[in-house]
Protein backbone atom coordinates (compact mmCIF):
# COMPACT_ATOMS: atom_id res chain seq x y z
CA UNK A 1 0.00 0.00 0.00
CA UNK A 2 1.30 3.43 -0.97
CA UNK A 3 0.13 6.88 0.05
CA UNK A 4 0.73 10.14 -1.81
CA UNK A 5 -0.14 13.70 -0.89
CA UNK A 6 -1.23 15.91 -3.76
CA UNK A 7 -2.58 19.39 -4.26
CA UNK A 8 -5.59 19.40 -6.52
CA UNK A 9 -5.21 21.65 -9.57
CA UNK A 10 -8.83 21.27 -10.62
CA UNK A 11 -9.71 24.73 -9.39
CA UNK A 12 -8.09 27.54 -7.44
CA UNK A 13 -9.11 26.09 -4.08
CA UNK A 14 -6.16 23.73 -4.30
CA UNK A 15 -7.48 21.03 -1.96
CA UNK A 16 -4.88 18.92 -0.17
CA UNK A 17 -5.53 15.36 -1.33
CA UNK A 18 -4.36 12.10 0.16
CA UNK A 19 -4.29 9.23 -2.31
CA UNK A 20 -4.02 5.67 -1.09
CA UNK A 21 -3.04 3.05 -3.66
CA UNK A 22 -3.57 -0.59 -2.90
CA UNK A 23 -2.97 -2.38 -6.17
CA UNK A 24 -5.81 -1.51 -8.45
CA UNK A 25 -7.72 0.00 -5.61
CA UNK A 26 -7.24 3.79 -5.33
CA UNK A 27 -8.96 5.88 -2.70
CA UNK A 28 -8.88 9.66 -2.43
CA UNK A 29 -9.44 11.76 0.67
CA UNK A 30 -9.41 15.51 1.24
CA UNK A 31 -11.24 16.55 -1.90
CA UNK A 32 -14.26 18.84 -1.66
CA UNK A 33 -15.73 17.85 -5.03
CA UNK A 34 -15.62 15.04 -7.62
CA UNK A 35 -13.01 16.94 -9.67
CA UNK A 36 -10.49 16.24 -6.90
CA UNK A 37 -11.08 12.52 -6.94
CA UNK A 38 -10.81 12.36 -10.71
CA UNK A 39 -7.66 14.46 -10.70
CA UNK A 40 -6.00 12.41 -7.97
CA UNK A 41 -6.69 9.09 -9.64
CA UNK A 42 -5.35 10.38 -12.92
CA UNK A 43 -2.34 12.01 -11.31
CA UNK A 44 -1.12 8.74 -9.77
CA UNK A 45 -1.81 6.61 -12.85
CA UNK A 46 -1.54 8.80 -15.95
CA UNK A 47 -0.90 12.46 -15.09
CA UNK A 48 -2.08 14.93 -17.73
CA UNK A 49 -1.93 18.68 -18.31
CA UNK A 50 -3.38 21.23 -20.70
CA UNK A 51 -0.52 22.94 -22.55
CA UNK A 52 -0.86 26.60 -23.47
CA UNK A 53 1.51 28.54 -25.68
CA UNK A 54 1.51 30.80 -28.71
CA UNK A 55 2.49 30.48 -32.36
CA UNK A 56 3.69 33.00 -34.89
CA UNK A 57 0.91 34.48 -37.02
CA UNK A 58 1.56 36.10 -40.40
CA UNK A 59 -0.53 38.78 -42.05
CA UNK A 60 -1.93 40.18 -38.80
CA UNK A 61 -1.42 43.31 -36.74
CA UNK A 62 -0.03 41.22 -33.91
CA UNK A 63 2.88 38.79 -33.90
CA UNK A 64 1.48 35.80 -32.02
CA UNK A 65 -1.75 33.91 -31.65
CA UNK A 66 -2.27 32.08 -28.38
CA UNK A 67 -3.05 28.35 -28.49
CA UNK A 68 -3.83 25.44 -26.20
CA UNK A 69 -4.25 21.70 -26.40
CA UNK A 70 -7.96 21.09 -26.84
CA UNK A 71 -7.86 18.79 -23.83
CA UNK A 72 -5.26 17.57 -21.38
CA UNK A 73 -2.37 15.49 -22.69
CA UNK A 74 0.01 13.11 -20.89
CA UNK A 75 2.48 15.07 -18.80
CA UNK A 76 5.45 13.34 -20.40
CA UNK A 77 4.32 14.61 -23.81
CA UNK A 78 4.44 18.29 -22.84
CA UNK A 79 7.83 19.02 -24.38
CA UNK A 80 7.13 16.95 -27.52
CA UNK A 81 3.98 18.97 -27.94
CA UNK A 82 5.91 22.23 -27.38
CA UNK A 83 8.47 21.23 -30.01
CA UNK A 84 5.68 21.01 -32.59
CA UNK A 85 4.07 24.24 -31.44
CA UNK A 86 7.37 26.10 -31.66
CA UNK A 87 7.85 25.04 -35.28
CA UNK A 88 4.51 26.14 -36.63
CA UNK A 89 3.42 29.40 -38.27
CA UNK A 90 -0.13 30.28 -39.27
CA UNK A 91 -1.75 32.92 -41.44
CA UNK A 92 -4.40 35.38 -40.31
CA UNK A 93 -7.32 35.42 -39.91
CA UNK A 94 -7.54 32.96 -37.03
CA UNK A 95 -10.59 32.33 -34.88
CA UNK A 96 -10.90 30.89 -31.41
CA UNK A 97 -11.16 27.12 -31.74
CA UNK A 98 -9.42 26.88 -35.13
CA UNK A 99 -7.30 23.75 -35.22
CA UNK A 100 -3.65 24.76 -35.49
CA UNK A 101 -2.07 21.30 -35.18
CA UNK A 102 -3.99 18.05 -35.48
CA UNK A 103 -3.00 15.15 -33.28
CA UNK A 104 -0.16 17.02 -31.66
CA UNK A 105 2.89 14.85 -30.88
CA UNK A 106 0.84 11.72 -31.37
CA UNK A 107 -1.39 12.45 -28.39
CA UNK A 108 -4.56 12.39 -30.45
CA UNK A 109 -5.27 15.88 -29.12
CA UNK A 110 -5.38 18.95 -31.35
CA UNK A 111 -3.82 22.29 -30.65
CA UNK A 112 -6.42 25.02 -31.12
CA UNK A 113 -6.33 28.81 -31.26
CA UNK A 114 -7.51 30.69 -28.16
CA UNK A 115 -7.60 34.16 -29.67
CA UNK A 116 -9.36 35.81 -32.56
CA UNK A 117 -6.76 37.37 -34.83
CA UNK A 118 -8.12 39.32 -37.79
CA UNK A 119 -6.06 40.00 -40.92
CA UNK A 120 -3.87 43.07 -40.87
CA UNK A 121 -5.73 46.34 -41.31
Amino acid sequence: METRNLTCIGCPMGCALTVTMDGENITVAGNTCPVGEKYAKKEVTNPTRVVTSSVRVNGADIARVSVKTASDIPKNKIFDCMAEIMKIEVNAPVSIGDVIIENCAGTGVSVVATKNVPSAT
Partner: protein
Amino acid sequence: MKQYDIVVIGGGPAGLAAAISAKKAGVSDIMILERDATLGGILNQCIHNGFGLHTFKEELTGPEYAARFIEQAKEMEIPYKLGAMVLSVSPEKVITYMNKEEGLVQISAKAIILAMGCRERPRGALNIPGFRPAGIYSAGTAQRLMNIEGYSVGKEVVILGSGDIGLIMARRMTLEGANVKVVAELMPYSGGLKRNIVQCLNDFNIPLKLSHTVVGIDGEKRITGVTIAEVDANRQPIPGTEVHYDCDTLLLSCGLIPENELTREIGVEMNRVTSGPNVDDKLQTGVEGVFACGNVLHVHDLVDHVSAEAALAGENAAAYVLSGTTSEKTHKITLKAENGVRYTVPQTIDVENMRDSVTVRFRVADIYHDRSIAVYYGDKKVMSRKKRVLAPGEMEQVQLKKDSFKDYPDITEITIRTEEA
Protein backbone atom coordinates in the same frame (compact mmCIF):
# COMPACT_ATOMS: atom_id res chain seq x y z
CA MET B 1 -19.36 69.05 -23.78
CA LYS B 2 -20.82 65.66 -24.54
CA GLN B 3 -22.50 64.04 -21.59
CA TYR B 4 -22.87 60.30 -21.13
CA ASP B 5 -24.98 58.46 -18.60
CA ILE B 6 -22.12 56.17 -17.65
CA VAL B 7 -18.45 56.37 -18.54
CA VAL B 8 -16.40 53.28 -17.77
CA ILE B 9 -12.68 53.92 -17.41
CA GLY B 10 -10.90 50.77 -18.51
CA GLY B 11 -11.91 48.09 -21.00
CA GLY B 12 -10.43 45.07 -19.25
CA PRO B 13 -12.45 42.33 -17.58
CA ALA B 14 -13.84 44.69 -14.91
CA GLY B 15 -14.82 47.48 -17.30
CA LEU B 16 -16.42 45.12 -19.79
CA ALA B 17 -18.47 43.27 -17.18
CA ALA B 18 -19.56 46.55 -15.60
CA ALA B 19 -20.64 48.04 -18.92
CA ILE B 20 -22.53 44.91 -19.95
CA SER B 21 -24.44 44.74 -16.69
CA ALA B 22 -25.21 48.48 -16.75
CA LYS B 23 -26.68 48.07 -20.19
CA LYS B 24 -28.69 45.05 -19.07
CA ALA B 25 -30.00 47.17 -16.21
CA GLY B 26 -31.45 49.65 -18.64
CA VAL B 27 -28.83 52.31 -19.37
CA SER B 28 -27.72 52.53 -22.99
CA ASP B 29 -25.76 55.75 -23.05
CA ILE B 30 -22.45 54.20 -22.02
CA MET B 31 -18.89 54.83 -23.12
CA ILE B 32 -15.91 52.60 -22.34
CA LEU B 33 -12.53 54.35 -22.50
CA GLU B 34 -9.65 51.91 -23.01
CA ARG B 35 -6.04 53.10 -23.17
CA ASP B 36 -4.68 50.03 -24.97
CA ALA B 37 -5.21 49.18 -28.65
CA THR B 38 -7.58 46.30 -27.81
CA LEU B 39 -10.28 45.51 -25.29
CA GLY B 40 -9.68 42.76 -22.75
CA GLY B 41 -6.89 44.30 -20.73
CA ILE B 42 -4.23 42.14 -19.19
CA LEU B 43 -6.19 38.95 -20.03
CA ASN B 44 -4.84 39.22 -23.56
CA GLN B 45 -1.36 38.31 -22.38
CA CYS B 46 -2.55 35.68 -19.88
CA ILE B 47 -2.57 32.87 -22.43
CA HIS B 48 -2.61 30.15 -19.76
CA ASN B 49 -5.78 28.33 -18.75
CA GLY B 50 -7.63 28.44 -15.46
CA PHE B 51 -10.06 31.27 -16.07
CA GLY B 52 -13.83 31.05 -15.99
CA LEU B 53 -14.50 28.07 -13.73
CA HIS B 54 -16.98 30.13 -11.72
CA THR B 55 -18.34 32.35 -14.48
CA PHE B 56 -18.67 29.85 -17.32
CA LYS B 57 -18.22 26.52 -15.51
CA GLU B 58 -15.37 25.66 -17.84
CA GLU B 59 -11.69 26.28 -17.94
CA LEU B 60 -10.68 28.97 -20.41
CA THR B 61 -7.50 30.79 -21.29
CA GLY B 62 -7.25 34.53 -20.69
CA PRO B 63 -7.89 35.57 -24.31
CA GLU B 64 -10.88 33.21 -24.51
CA TYR B 65 -12.35 34.58 -21.30
CA ALA B 66 -11.86 38.14 -22.56
CA ALA B 67 -13.35 37.27 -25.96
CA ARG B 68 -16.62 36.13 -24.37
CA PHE B 69 -17.05 39.54 -22.75
CA ILE B 70 -15.80 41.47 -25.78
CA GLU B 71 -18.22 39.65 -28.07
CA GLN B 72 -21.09 40.27 -25.70
CA ALA B 73 -20.25 43.97 -25.44
CA LYS B 74 -20.12 44.21 -29.22
CA GLU B 75 -23.40 42.34 -29.65
CA MET B 76 -25.00 44.71 -27.19
CA GLU B 77 -23.53 47.59 -29.17
CA ILE B 78 -21.85 49.17 -26.20
CA PRO B 79 -19.68 52.02 -27.50
CA TYR B 80 -15.99 52.03 -26.68
CA LYS B 81 -12.88 53.97 -27.62
CA LEU B 82 -9.45 52.40 -27.96
CA GLY B 83 -6.12 54.14 -27.43
CA ALA B 84 -8.03 56.56 -25.24
CA MET B 85 -5.96 57.64 -22.28
CA VAL B 86 -7.84 59.35 -19.47
CA LEU B 87 -5.72 62.19 -18.15
CA SER B 88 -7.95 63.46 -15.40
CA VAL B 89 -11.30 63.08 -13.72
CA SER B 90 -12.81 65.94 -11.72
CA PRO B 91 -15.14 65.60 -8.72
CA GLU B 92 -17.83 67.09 -11.00
CA LYS B 93 -17.34 64.00 -13.19
CA VAL B 94 -15.69 65.79 -16.08
CA ILE B 95 -13.31 63.39 -17.79
CA THR B 96 -10.39 64.55 -19.93
CA TYR B 97 -9.02 61.92 -22.28
CA MET B 98 -6.99 61.89 -25.44
CA ASN B 99 -6.44 59.70 -28.41
CA LYS B 100 -4.96 59.85 -31.88
CA GLU B 101 -8.21 60.46 -33.73
CA GLU B 102 -9.93 63.07 -31.58
CA GLY B 103 -6.99 64.67 -29.81
CA LEU B 104 -7.81 66.07 -26.42
CA VAL B 105 -11.45 65.67 -25.41
CA GLN B 106 -13.54 66.56 -22.37
CA ILE B 107 -16.75 64.70 -21.62
CA SER B 108 -18.95 64.49 -18.59
CA ALA B 109 -20.82 61.60 -17.04
CA LYS B 110 -23.72 61.11 -14.68
CA ALA B 111 -21.93 58.08 -13.27
CA ILE B 112 -18.36 56.89 -13.60
CA ILE B 113 -17.15 53.35 -13.14
CA LEU B 114 -13.46 53.13 -12.28
CA ALA B 115 -11.96 49.95 -13.73
CA MET B 116 -8.31 50.84 -14.38
CA GLY B 117 -6.80 47.67 -12.95
CA CYS B 118 -3.42 47.48 -11.29
CA ARG B 119 0.28 47.57 -12.01
CA GLU B 120 3.23 45.50 -10.86
CA ARG B 121 5.48 46.62 -8.05
CA PRO B 122 8.76 47.64 -9.72
CA ARG B 123 12.29 46.82 -8.62
CA GLY B 124 12.81 50.29 -7.19
CA ALA B 125 9.92 49.90 -4.79
CA LEU B 126 11.53 46.68 -3.55
CA ASN B 127 14.83 48.47 -2.95
CA ILE B 128 16.90 45.53 -4.18
CA PRO B 129 20.52 46.61 -4.02
CA GLY B 130 23.03 46.09 -6.80
CA PHE B 131 23.65 47.21 -10.36
CA ARG B 132 20.87 48.34 -12.67
CA PRO B 133 21.53 46.32 -15.82
CA ALA B 134 19.22 45.20 -18.61
CA GLY B 135 17.43 41.90 -18.10
CA ILE B 136 15.42 42.78 -15.00
CA TYR B 137 11.74 42.65 -15.81
CA SER B 138 8.56 42.65 -13.88
CA ALA B 139 6.95 39.31 -14.71
CA GLY B 140 4.01 40.91 -16.51
CA THR B 141 6.29 42.95 -18.78
CA ALA B 142 8.15 39.79 -19.78
CA GLN B 143 4.80 38.07 -20.27
CA ARG B 144 3.65 40.79 -22.62
CA LEU B 145 6.89 40.68 -24.62
CA MET B 146 6.62 36.90 -25.01
CA ASN B 147 2.92 36.41 -25.52
CA ILE B 148 1.96 39.51 -27.46
CA GLU B 149 5.15 40.75 -29.13
CA GLY B 150 6.77 37.34 -29.60
CA TYR B 151 10.18 37.97 -28.07
CA SER B 152 11.86 35.97 -25.38
CA VAL B 153 13.57 38.03 -22.71
CA GLY B 154 16.22 35.52 -21.62
CA LYS B 155 17.48 31.99 -21.22
CA GLU B 156 18.83 31.61 -17.69
CA VAL B 157 16.18 32.87 -15.34
CA VAL B 158 15.78 33.63 -11.65
CA ILE B 159 12.41 34.79 -10.35
CA LEU B 160 11.90 36.88 -7.24
CA GLY B 161 8.43 36.66 -5.80
CA SER B 162 5.95 33.85 -6.11
CA GLY B 163 2.93 35.84 -7.19
CA ASP B 164 0.80 34.10 -9.79
CA ILE B 165 2.32 35.96 -12.74
CA GLY B 166 5.79 34.89 -11.63
CA LEU B 167 4.71 31.26 -11.30
CA ILE B 168 2.96 31.32 -14.66
CA MET B 169 6.06 32.85 -16.27
CA ALA B 170 8.30 30.19 -14.70
CA ARG B 171 6.35 27.58 -16.65
CA ARG B 172 5.99 29.69 -19.76
CA MET B 173 9.72 30.34 -20.05
CA THR B 174 10.54 26.70 -19.27
CA LEU B 175 8.21 25.54 -22.06
CA GLU B 176 9.95 27.92 -24.46
CA GLY B 177 13.32 26.41 -23.61
CA ALA B 178 14.62 28.70 -20.87
CA ASN B 179 16.24 27.36 -17.72
CA VAL B 180 14.36 28.70 -14.71
CA LYS B 181 16.74 28.11 -11.84
CA VAL B 182 14.86 29.16 -8.75
CA VAL B 183 11.91 31.13 -7.47
CA ALA B 184 12.73 33.08 -4.31
CA GLU B 185 9.94 34.32 -2.06
CA LEU B 186 10.52 36.80 0.74
CA MET B 187 7.57 35.59 2.77
CA PRO B 188 7.35 32.19 4.46
CA TYR B 189 4.46 31.37 2.10
CA SER B 190 3.70 31.90 -1.56
CA GLY B 191 1.50 34.74 -2.69
CA GLY B 192 0.28 32.62 -5.58
CA LEU B 193 -2.38 29.97 -5.95
CA LYS B 194 -1.50 26.46 -4.77
CA ARG B 195 -2.44 24.96 -8.13
CA ASN B 196 0.09 27.20 -9.83
CA ILE B 197 2.86 25.99 -7.53
CA VAL B 198 2.00 22.43 -8.52
CA GLN B 199 1.63 22.86 -12.25
CA CYS B 200 4.13 25.68 -12.85
CA LEU B 201 6.97 24.81 -10.47
CA ASN B 202 6.65 21.23 -9.20
CA ASP B 203 5.86 19.85 -12.66
CA PHE B 204 9.20 21.19 -13.89
CA ASN B 205 11.25 20.66 -10.73
CA ILE B 206 11.77 24.39 -10.26
CA PRO B 207 12.71 24.99 -6.62
CA LEU B 208 10.67 27.48 -4.57
CA LYS B 209 12.74 29.01 -1.80
CA LEU B 210 10.46 30.54 0.81
CA SER B 211 11.85 33.20 3.17
CA HIS B 212 14.52 34.10 0.63
CA THR B 213 15.26 37.30 -1.22
CA VAL B 214 17.67 38.81 -3.73
CA VAL B 215 20.44 40.69 -1.93
CA GLY B 216 22.66 41.51 -4.89
CA ILE B 217 22.48 42.01 -8.63
CA ASP B 218 25.59 41.58 -10.80
CA GLY B 219 26.29 42.83 -14.30
CA GLU B 220 26.84 46.37 -15.49
CA LYS B 221 25.26 46.01 -18.93
CA ARG B 222 23.10 42.90 -18.90
CA ILE B 223 22.46 41.06 -15.67
CA THR B 224 24.96 38.21 -15.15
CA GLY B 225 23.85 36.87 -11.81
CA VAL B 226 22.03 37.40 -8.56
CA THR B 227 22.76 36.57 -4.95
CA ILE B 228 19.93 35.12 -2.93
CA ALA B 229 19.89 34.90 0.85
CA GLU B 230 17.56 33.52 3.46
CA VAL B 231 15.71 36.06 5.59
CA ASP B 232 14.85 36.00 9.28
CA ALA B 233 11.45 36.55 10.87
CA ASN B 234 11.85 40.32 10.31
CA ARG B 235 12.54 39.69 6.62
CA GLN B 236 16.18 40.74 7.04
CA PRO B 237 18.81 38.74 5.13
CA ILE B 238 20.74 36.29 7.31
CA PRO B 239 24.50 36.70 6.75
CA GLY B 240 26.20 33.53 5.60
CA THR B 241 23.18 32.17 3.75
CA GLU B 242 24.03 33.85 0.44
CA VAL B 243 23.93 31.69 -2.69
CA HIS B 244 24.93 32.98 -6.10
CA TYR B 245 23.06 32.11 -9.28
CA ASP B 246 24.35 32.90 -12.75
CA CYS B 247 21.50 34.21 -14.85
CA ASP B 248 20.73 36.57 -17.73
CA THR B 249 17.25 37.43 -16.53
CA LEU B 250 15.60 38.35 -13.26
CA LEU B 251 11.82 38.42 -13.20
CA LEU B 252 10.00 40.18 -10.40
CA SER B 253 6.60 39.07 -9.21
CA CYS B 254 6.34 40.90 -5.94
CA GLY B 255 2.85 42.18 -5.75
CA LEU B 256 0.35 44.30 -7.59
CA ILE B 257 -0.70 47.86 -6.82
CA PRO B 258 -4.12 49.25 -7.81
CA GLU B 259 -3.72 52.12 -10.29
CA ASN B 260 -5.56 54.84 -8.44
CA GLU B 261 -3.91 58.04 -9.61
CA LEU B 262 -7.17 59.20 -11.23
CA THR B 263 -9.20 58.09 -8.22
CA ARG B 264 -7.09 60.22 -5.88
CA GLU B 265 -7.62 63.20 -8.14
CA ILE B 266 -11.39 62.89 -7.73
CA GLY B 267 -10.76 63.26 -4.03
CA VAL B 268 -12.37 60.06 -2.78
CA GLU B 269 -11.30 58.48 0.47
CA MET B 270 -8.66 55.82 -0.04
CA ASN B 271 -7.92 52.66 1.93
CA ARG B 272 -4.36 52.17 3.19
CA VAL B 273 -4.55 48.38 3.09
CA THR B 274 -6.15 47.80 -0.31
CA SER B 275 -4.64 50.93 -1.93
CA GLY B 276 -8.06 51.29 -3.52
CA PRO B 277 -10.95 53.61 -2.68
CA ASN B 278 -13.29 52.88 0.22
CA VAL B 279 -16.67 51.79 -1.09
CA ASP B 280 -20.12 50.96 0.23
CA ASP B 281 -22.16 47.86 -0.55
CA LYS B 282 -23.04 49.38 -3.93
CA LEU B 283 -19.31 49.68 -4.68
CA GLN B 284 -19.80 53.41 -4.71
CA THR B 285 -16.84 55.51 -3.59
CA GLY B 286 -17.05 58.53 -1.32
CA VAL B 287 -18.08 60.66 -4.29
CA GLU B 288 -21.67 60.08 -5.30
CA GLY B 289 -22.00 58.40 -8.68
CA VAL B 290 -18.41 57.21 -8.80
CA PHE B 291 -18.16 53.43 -8.57
CA ALA B 292 -15.12 51.16 -8.56
CA CYS B 293 -14.57 47.49 -9.35
CA GLY B 294 -11.92 44.96 -10.19
CA ASN B 295 -8.23 45.32 -9.40
CA VAL B 296 -8.43 49.08 -9.06
CA LEU B 297 -10.60 48.48 -5.98
CA HIS B 298 -8.53 45.66 -4.49
CA VAL B 299 -6.25 43.11 -6.08
CA HIS B 300 -8.20 39.93 -6.85
CA ASP B 301 -7.02 36.36 -7.11
CA LEU B 302 -9.43 35.26 -9.84
CA VAL B 303 -10.87 37.11 -12.79
CA ASP B 304 -14.16 35.38 -12.09
CA HIS B 305 -14.46 37.39 -8.90
CA VAL B 306 -13.60 40.55 -10.84
CA SER B 307 -16.42 39.87 -13.27
CA ALA B 308 -18.95 39.27 -10.52
CA GLU B 309 -17.91 42.39 -8.62
CA ALA B 310 -17.90 44.52 -11.76
CA ALA B 311 -21.36 43.34 -12.78
CA LEU B 312 -22.62 44.58 -9.45
CA ALA B 313 -20.91 47.94 -9.91
CA GLY B 314 -22.49 48.25 -13.37
CA GLU B 315 -25.93 47.43 -12.08
CA ASN B 316 -25.63 49.93 -9.24
CA ALA B 317 -24.30 52.65 -11.51
CA ALA B 318 -27.30 52.09 -13.79
CA ALA B 319 -29.68 52.28 -10.85
CA TYR B 320 -28.03 55.51 -9.76
CA VAL B 321 -28.41 57.03 -13.23
CA LEU B 322 -32.03 55.89 -13.58
CA SER B 323 -33.10 57.16 -10.16
CA GLY B 324 -31.00 60.28 -10.42
CA THR B 325 -29.59 59.94 -6.94
CA THR B 326 -28.45 57.55 -4.31
CA SER B 327 -30.92 56.96 -1.58
CA GLU B 328 -30.37 58.67 1.74
CA LYS B 329 -28.08 56.58 3.90
CA THR B 330 -30.19 55.85 6.92
CA HIS B 331 -28.42 52.98 8.57
CA LYS B 332 -24.78 52.86 7.66
CA ILE B 333 -22.73 50.05 9.16
CA THR B 334 -18.96 50.03 9.12
CA LEU B 335 -17.14 46.78 8.46
CA LYS B 336 -14.10 46.13 10.57
CA ALA B 337 -11.36 43.64 9.72
CA GLU B 338 -9.38 42.20 12.59
CA ASN B 339 -7.37 39.28 13.92
CA GLY B 340 -5.90 38.03 10.68
CA VAL B 341 -8.40 39.60 8.30
CA ARG B 342 -6.56 42.40 6.54
CA TYR B 343 -9.41 44.35 5.01
CA THR B 344 -12.93 44.07 3.70
CA VAL B 345 -14.55 45.26 0.50
CA PRO B 346 -17.01 46.92 0.82
CA GLN B 347 -16.01 48.94 3.87
CA THR B 348 -19.58 50.05 4.71
CA ILE B 349 -23.07 48.66 4.25
CA ASP B 350 -26.26 50.66 4.03
CA VAL B 351 -28.72 48.17 5.48
CA GLU B 352 -31.94 50.01 4.55
CA ASN B 353 -31.06 50.16 0.88
CA MET B 354 -28.98 47.07 0.42
CA ARG B 355 -29.84 44.21 -1.89
CA ASP B 356 -31.05 40.92 -0.49
CA SER B 357 -27.50 39.95 0.13
CA VAL B 358 -24.05 41.48 -0.12
CA THR B 359 -20.78 39.67 -0.80
CA VAL B 360 -17.96 40.85 1.43
CA ARG B 361 -14.54 40.01 0.02
CA PHE B 362 -11.31 40.03 2.00
CA ARG B 363 -7.86 38.55 2.37
CA VAL B 364 -6.12 37.09 5.38
CA ALA B 365 -2.71 38.17 6.68
CA ASP B 366 -0.92 34.85 6.98
CA ILE B 367 -1.26 31.14 6.37
CA TYR B 368 -3.71 29.75 8.94
CA HIS B 369 -4.68 26.14 9.51
CA ASP B 370 -7.99 25.04 10.97
CA ARG B 371 -9.36 28.46 11.76
CA SER B 372 -12.82 29.86 11.45
CA ILE B 373 -13.95 33.01 9.80
CA ALA B 374 -16.31 34.67 12.22
CA VAL B 375 -18.74 37.51 11.62
CA TYR B 376 -19.95 39.68 14.49
CA TYR B 377 -22.89 42.06 14.35
CA GLY B 378 -21.92 44.48 17.08
CA ASP B 379 -20.50 42.10 19.68
CA LYS B 380 -22.75 39.18 18.79
CA LYS B 381 -21.25 36.37 16.73
CA VAL B 382 -23.71 35.60 13.94
CA MET B 383 -21.67 33.41 11.65
CA SER B 384 -18.65 31.15 11.87
CA ARG B 385 -17.23 29.06 9.07
CA LYS B 386 -14.42 26.63 9.61
CA LYS B 387 -11.63 26.59 7.05
CA ARG B 388 -8.89 23.99 6.86
CA VAL B 389 -6.48 26.43 5.27
CA LEU B 390 -6.55 30.18 4.82
CA ALA B 391 -3.85 31.79 2.67
CA PRO B 392 -3.05 35.42 1.81
CA GLY B 393 -2.83 34.51 -1.88
CA GLU B 394 -6.48 33.57 -2.00
CA MET B 395 -9.42 35.90 -1.59
CA GLU B 396 -12.12 34.88 0.87
CA GLN B 397 -15.72 35.97 0.95
CA VAL B 398 -18.83 35.86 3.13
CA GLN B 399 -22.42 36.61 2.18
CA LEU B 400 -24.42 38.86 4.47
CA LYS B 401 -28.18 38.62 4.00
CA LYS B 402 -30.42 41.62 4.42
CA ASP B 403 -32.77 39.50 6.54
CA SER B 404 -30.01 38.78 8.98
CA PHE B 405 -29.94 42.40 10.12
CA LYS B 406 -33.59 42.38 11.24
CA ASP B 407 -32.71 41.36 14.77
CA TYR B 408 -29.90 43.92 14.98
CA PRO B 409 -31.51 47.27 14.25
CA ASP B 410 -28.99 49.31 16.22
CA ILE B 411 -25.59 47.92 15.26
CA THR B 412 -23.06 50.30 13.81
CA GLU B 413 -20.27 47.86 13.23
CA ILE B 414 -19.72 44.44 11.70
CA THR B 415 -16.47 42.68 12.53
CA ILE B 416 -14.93 39.97 10.42
CA ARG B 417 -12.08 38.07 12.04
CA THR B 418 -10.35 34.73 12.08
CA GLU B 419 -10.63 32.63 15.23
CA GLU B 420 -9.19 29.41 16.53
CA ALA B 421 -11.61 26.72 15.41
